[in-house]
């Protein structure tokens, strides 16, 4: 094996990949949340559609979209491999285990939270991204995403699934954001405070912003 693949398949290398793709996906969340928040202008989707059109047609963004899909796939595949390796490291478990005495439940449940997010991701892309891109490939025309949101978010069950996805995202980020820096070796007395603060704030603000979108449309605050 070359030194490069040796590095990436080592236990530390796999965590390095998780951290790098995780931080990349975090940067995607910033863009996604910002552009979607344009619905809160409540201008019938004019600003939102303007930016949605830019994201859907700009050649640089469309190229980065391929990198984004790769980022998701690596993060998911690497996570599953780590989950399998880690389970194999302890074939016989403890009869009595008092884990809450030494760690938080969400830090121990990244695989479970990630799986919930993956299920949400499938539902979410089936609602918007896949139909829109399919239509673009077939006809070259974009769909009216704003109208689709208004329609889809009339169903209370869909709204609940989206809010559930946001709650999973909150817990996943609450550990994942800080954990990524530790995996990258960025544990330093000068930066730990700011990483912890930004990580917690990010984990609250982004999922809250996302959750408000289906809720606002369901309750008719955004029309």
């Amino acid at each position, binding site marked *: 094996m070359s030194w490069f693949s040796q590095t990436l398949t080592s236990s530390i290398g796999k965590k390095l990949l998780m951290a790098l793709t995780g931080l990349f996906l975090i940067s995607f969340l910033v863009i996604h949340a910002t552009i979607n928040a344009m619905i809160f202008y409540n201008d019938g989707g004019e600003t939102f559609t303007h930016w949605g059109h830019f994201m859907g047609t700009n050649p640089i963004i469309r190229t980065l979209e391929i990198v984004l899909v790769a980022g998701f796939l690596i993060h998911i595949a690497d996570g599953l491999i780590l989950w399998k390796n880690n389970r194999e490291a302890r074939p016989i478990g403890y009869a009595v285990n*008092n884990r809450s005495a*030494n*760690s938080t439940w969400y830090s121990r449940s990244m695989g479970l939270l990630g799986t919930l997010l993956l299920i949400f991701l499938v539902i979410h892309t089936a609602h918007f991204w896949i139909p829109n891109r399919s239509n673009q490939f077939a006809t070259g025309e974009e769909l009216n995403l704003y109208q689709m949101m208004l329609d889809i978010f009339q169903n209370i069950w869909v709204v609940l699934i989206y809010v559930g996805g946001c709650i999973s995202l909150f817990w996943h980020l609450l550990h994942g954001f800080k954990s990524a820096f530790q995996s990258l070796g960025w544990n330093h007395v000068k930066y730990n405070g700011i990483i912890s603060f930004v990580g917690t704030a990010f984990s609250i603000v982004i999922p809250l912003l996302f959750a408000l979108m289906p809720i606002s449309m369901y309750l008719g605050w955004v029309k």
Partner: protein
Amino acid sequence: MEGNMSLSLKVWRQSNKETAGGFENYKLDSVSPDMSFLEMFDVLNEQLIEEGKEPVAFDHDCREGICGSCSMYINGRPHGPLRGVTVCQLHMRSFNDGDTIVVEPWRAQAFPVIKDLVVDRDAFDRVVSAGGFISVNTGNAQDANSLPIPKEAADDAFSAAACIGCGACVAACKNASAMLFVSAKISQLALLPQGQAERSIRAEKMVAQMDAEGFGACTNTGACSAECPKEISMENIARMNREYIGAKFSSSAV
């Protein structure tokens, strides 16, 4: 004696690596609260010998918290309920009269059970053999002051070197990861001038050996550090990640 306790013990018994084990229940009366946990096991074993039964095998040596031999998973936590102590430093006053105490061996693929509560921790020795050393030429030791070492670096190296290799980090980790142990062993040398010669090859080889032994990866839950009897810091794991990634991307070992 007044103030002594009655306890129920649920102890893991296993004849050897190959056979399946199981829990056995024992009753102990008149346990002094001033006994250490291991002394309580001595009392149990004397009782078992008198009854003509096989005593419980458990690891112990110094009984003053520095050898790293004792390794019991007590009521769901390595080294029991207290922080920063080994089993031998845990006293029965940390329990209450009438308690049921469950005692299991460390559980990890890399730490097979030899007998009862004794596990094989040779994997740690092999990780250290892979690179946890420095090469020193023979001859007189040079004057200590000829190697300037910042106080902070010496302190950090000393804190890492406090690791006694008991394996509580592996036992506590949900992934049975040995990263706290390996990172302490890498850090204690990487921080000092004497450790510079083999610095990158050390990180590469020790991590490779750690992976070969079948330990898991790190999820940064912090359970290892919380349960470590020497309270080794998670900063060491971050340092190991830097050492390893830096070595992999810059050393001339292809």
